[in-house]
């Protein structure tokens, strides 16, 4: 299992008496989409927060490409190649679509301490940002302020910013949330192609998407992983059906 790009070992985090994540060990292998599903409040977002560095675990570790990054900050992990998207879009709302993408490119370049030359004249930044926008189909909206984007477009931009980082691994918290049926379909198609670039740890409640995309699925219930397996295995698992899927299995 040492070829895992991203790996958690025994991650535990408690809020008071509540164990939000409890000894969670997962891994993300090259080229795969690993879906993390589970009931509301199971601890998925809490896990993502620990993986991305926004939350310190009480116990356990996170490894990225074999290196222990548990003690590193969000920024350091991002620089080490971890890109995340947010469950609720976190974008600079007053800025244009291009500027948000350029921010990602700037982060990837690792050189924000340039005070005098305008971004617009920095070809490297511009190309990288535009390339990412083109891939999600937002190139025509580059000059639109984010506040004027529709919900679906904002989700696309979230992904585009992650793309500019050219990361080693993606962590996505509900990228389909709020997308309509055709939006979800398009996003599903897009993520499908993305896995060759870098593996994706995907938190999602949209079972159509999960079943279509995931190479493996882990099920988190009350902070614990109760099952990991292929889509077929998970759909058959009675414990998962009882805890999560109900009759949508």
């Amino acid at each position, binding site marked *: 299992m040492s070829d895992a790009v991203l790996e958690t070992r025994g991650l535990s985090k408690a*809020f008071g008496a509540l164990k939000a994540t409890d000894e969670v060990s997962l891994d993300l292998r090259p080229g795969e989409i690993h879906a993390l*599903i*589970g*009931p*509301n*409040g*199971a601890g998925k977002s809490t896990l993502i927060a620990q993986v991305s560095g926004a939350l310190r675990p009480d116990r356990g570790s996170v490894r990225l490409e074999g290196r222990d990054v548990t003690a590193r900050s969000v920024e350091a992990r991002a620089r080490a190649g971890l890109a995340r998207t947010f*469950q609720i879009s976190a974008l600079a709302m007053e800025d244009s679509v291009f500027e948000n993408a350029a921010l990602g490119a700037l982060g990837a370049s690792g050189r924000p301490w340039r005070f005098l030359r305008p971004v617009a004249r920095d070809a490297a930044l511009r190309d990288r940002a535009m390339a990412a926008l083109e891939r999600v189909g937002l190139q025509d909206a580059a000059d639109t302020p984010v506040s*004027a984007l*529709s*919900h*679906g*477009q904002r989700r696309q931009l979230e992904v585009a910013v992650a793309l500019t980082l050219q990361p080693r691994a993606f962590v996505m918290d*509900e990228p389909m*949330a*709020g*997308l*309509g*049926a*055709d*939006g*979800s*379909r398009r996003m599903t198609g897009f993520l499908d192609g993305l896995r060759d670039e870098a593996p994706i740890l995907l938190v999602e*409640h949209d*079972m159509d998407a999960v079943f279509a995309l995931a190479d493996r699925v882990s099920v988190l219930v009350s902070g614990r992983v109760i099952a990991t397996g292929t889509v077929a295995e998970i759909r058959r698992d009675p414990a998962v059906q009882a*805890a*999560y*899927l*109900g*009759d*949508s299995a």
Partner: protein
Amino acid sequence: MSLLHVSALTARYGAAPALFDVSLDIGAGEVVALMGRNGMGKTTTVKAICGMLPWEGTIRFDDADLAGWPSHRIARAGIGLVPEGRRPFRDLTVRENLIAAARTGDWTLERVADLFPRLGERSGQRAGSLSGGEQQMLAIGRALMTNPRLLILDEATEGLAPLVRQEIWAAIARLKRDTGLAILVIDKSVRELAQVADRAVILERGKTAWQGGMADLTPDISERLVGV
């Protein structure tokens, strides 16, 4: 005789128009699905009805013209809203969330707790620390505490686990069956909408593109206007 009548509704955000010509009707006790792709104006329509946005055209509720009414007056007239994005009062406890909205009527803390036992269990917890599904239940419970005659659910199942979704749909079905509450429901899942709704209204770029009985919603209309 419809409970809510909307016609020729237009609305804008600043200078950008979002609704051009929306009309819809909801009769007493009726469940109507409001459908359409992303960004077609469903939420905007709801906001207009609830007085959260300036609008032009006609909106009548129970024969009263809602033009110029502030949103609290509309709510008191009997429209309960479960907003997009849940919007619980994060620093209040579950119980306080419900009390904040309460007005006298059939719906009480106990009855909401019967509908959503989970809320009863968590009554002392800060709403901000609830999970998404719990927050969604709270938002519905909170709207019911206003004892509305029309309940509006905007994406009430977004971000919820399948099992919880089923719970919410079951609750909606129960509301329909037991209380005769009129419901306007917006959701992504056409399949589930079809099970509870009597009629559907479909928006396309800020206009009502289709309305009719749920049974009349043929797959090609649905494919063309909703993408499913």
